[in-house]
C-alpha cells in the first residue's frame, strides 16, 4: 500500500507541473496519439466493415486478417516501422502500429453490427424500394451503431494501453514515466504513470459506455417481440433471459 501512497505523492508533487515531463503535456500526447489512431482506424475499418456486413462477402477474410493483425507484436512493429521511416517520422510509425491494433476491433464491431440487424428488416427495407445505400445508412448503420461503438470502445482501450510504447521511439506520452521508472527503478513514478493510464482508460471507457446507451435508446432498442413464436424463448422460472445490455 505504501507503494500507492508514494505514487500519489509523486502524482501530486508540484514538480509534475513545473518540472521536466509535465503531466499535462504527456497526457496531451497520449490522448493525441489515441484519438488520431482511432480516427484513422475508423476511417479504414468502418467502411470496410459496412461493406462486409452489407454484402455478406469477405467475412472469412476479415476474420483471418483480424486474427493475423492481432498476432502482430506491437513492439516489433513499432521498432521496425521507426527504423524504416526514420525517427523524424516516428509519429507516422507509431500511428500505423496503433491503427493495426485498432482496426480489427472496429472492423468486427462494424460488420457484426450490420449482421446483427434482422435479415427480415433489411429485406423489408429493400422491398419498400430503398436503394442499397439507403438500406445501409438508414437501416443497417443506425441499428448496428451500438455494436460499432463497442468495437470503437475496445479499440480505444487497447490503443491507450499500447501507446505506452511510443516513449521508446522518442514520442513521449504517458509511457515515458513507465520507461523511466523501469530504468531508474523509481516505483512512484512508474506506478503514478500506470495509474494515469488506467484512469484515462476508465474515462474513455465510461464515455463510450454512455454513448452506447444513448445509441441504444435512440434506436428504440428492446428485445424484439415481433419474432415468430417459435423463436421466443420459453418462459423459464429458473433462468434469466439475457440481453446484451446486461452484459455491457
Amino acid at each position, binding site marked *: 500500500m505504501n507503494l500507492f501512497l508514494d505514487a500519489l505523492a509523486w502524482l501530486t508533487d508540484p514538480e509534475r507541473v513545473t518540472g521536466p515531463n509535465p503531466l499535462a503535456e504527456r497526457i496531451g500526447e497520449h490522448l493525441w496519439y489515441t484519438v488520431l489512431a482511432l480516427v484513422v482506424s475508423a476511417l479504414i475499418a468502418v467502411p470496410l466493415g459496412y461493406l462486409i456486413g452489407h454484402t455478406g462477402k469477405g467475412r472469412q477474410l476479415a476474420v483471418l486478417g483480424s486474427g493475423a493483425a492481432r498476432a502482430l507484436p506491437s513492439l516489433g512493429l513499432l521498432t521496425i516501422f521507426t527504423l524504416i521511416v526514420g525517427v523524424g517520422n516516428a509519429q507516422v510509425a507509431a500511428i500505423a502500429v496503433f491503427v493495426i491494433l485498432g482496426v480489427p476491433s472496429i472492423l468486427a464491431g462494424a460488420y457484426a453490427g450490420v449482421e446483427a440487424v434482422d435479415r427480415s428488416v433489411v429485406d423489408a427495407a429493400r*422491398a419498400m424500394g430503398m436503394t442499397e445505400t439507403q438500406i445501409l445508412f438508414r437501416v443497417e448503420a443506425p441499428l448496428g451503431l451500438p455494436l460499432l461503438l463497442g468495437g470503437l470502445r475496445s479499440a480505444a482501450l487497447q490503443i491507450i494501453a499500447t501507446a505506452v510504447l511510443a516513449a521508446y521511439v522518442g514520442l513521449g506520452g504517458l509511457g515515458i514515466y513507465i520507461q523511466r521508472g523501469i530504468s531508474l527503478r523509481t516505483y512512484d513514478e512508474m506506478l503514478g504513470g500506470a495509474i494515469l493510464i488506467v484512469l484515462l482508460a476508465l474515462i474513455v471507457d465510461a464515455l463510450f459506455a454512455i454513448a452506447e446507451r444513448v445509441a441504444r435508446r435512440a434506436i*428504440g432498442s428492446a428485445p424484439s417481440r415481433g419474432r415468430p413464436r417459435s423463436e421466443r424463448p420459453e418462459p423459464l422460472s429458473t433462468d434469466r433471459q439475457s440481453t446484451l445490455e446486461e452484459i455491457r
Partner: protein
Amino acid sequence: MIEFRGVGKRFADGTDAVIDFSLVMPSHRVTVLVGSSGSGKTTILRMINRMVDATVGTVEIDGEDVATLEPVQLRRRIGYVMQSGGLLPHRRVLDNITTVPRLNGMGRAEADERGLSLMDTVGLDRTLARRYPHQLSGGQQQRVGVARGLAVDPNILLMDEPFGAVDPIVRADLQAELLRLQRDIGKTVVFVTHDIDEAFLLGDQVVILSTGGVIAQQGTPAEILANPASDFVADFVGADRGRRALRVVEQDGRRVVVDGDGRAAGVLTDDPAAR
C-alpha cells in the same frame, strides 16, 4: 392484371424453386397462393416486385414486362406486407408507415397526415403513432405492416403470410378486417399462406401449389372443394382424410356437422344469413 408466362427460377445454389409457372392474377381480386413449405409461394410473390428475378419467362404487370422496370421504382409503387412484419425497429410507428411516401419525396406534414388516416383505415388507434414497433402487440404490428403496404396507394398489394405470427383470435380479426378493407379499396391482392382455411376464406381465386411452383389446381374455393383435381389436392384440402367429408349428427337437439374422424366441425343451420 399480373401475368406470369412460363416463369422459372433457379437460385444460385442450384435450387429450382419454381420450374414453369404461368398464371393470370386478375385486377381488383384476391389471388391466394397456397401450398406447403418450400413449394415456391414466396419466390413467385417476390418476382412481382423484382425482389427475385426470374431466370426464364416473363412477369407482366398490365402488359409491362417487369424486367424492363427499375426495381427500386417498381417496389415503391407496390405494397408488400411480410409475415414477420419487417417493421424498422428504430423508427416510430408513423415513420414506419410513411417511409415509402417520404422516399418518394412527399413532405413530412402531408405524409404524416396520410399515415394517420391509414392508421384509421387499418383500425389502429392514432395514439400509437409515436410508439416504437416493439411497444406494440403482434396483431398491432401486423396492422402497421398492412398500413405501410397501403401507404403509397398501390394498385398491387403483395401479402406473404401476413397473419402467420399472431394467435388465432387476432388472426381471425385481421382476416375479417382485410375482407372489409378489400371491399372498399379493391386492390389487386396476391396473398400467400399455407393455411388452406385462410386461402378459402380470403381468395377469389385460390391456386394450390406443389413443389417447384407447379399448379396442382386453381379456381374458386367451391370449385376446388367440389372437384379436387388430384389426390394431392384432395389430401391438401383435407377432403379424403375425412376432415371435409362431413355428415350430420344430433347433439343436444342441434344438428352438429362432424367430419370423417367423428370430430365436430360445426353446427348446421338452415338460415343462410346466420352469422
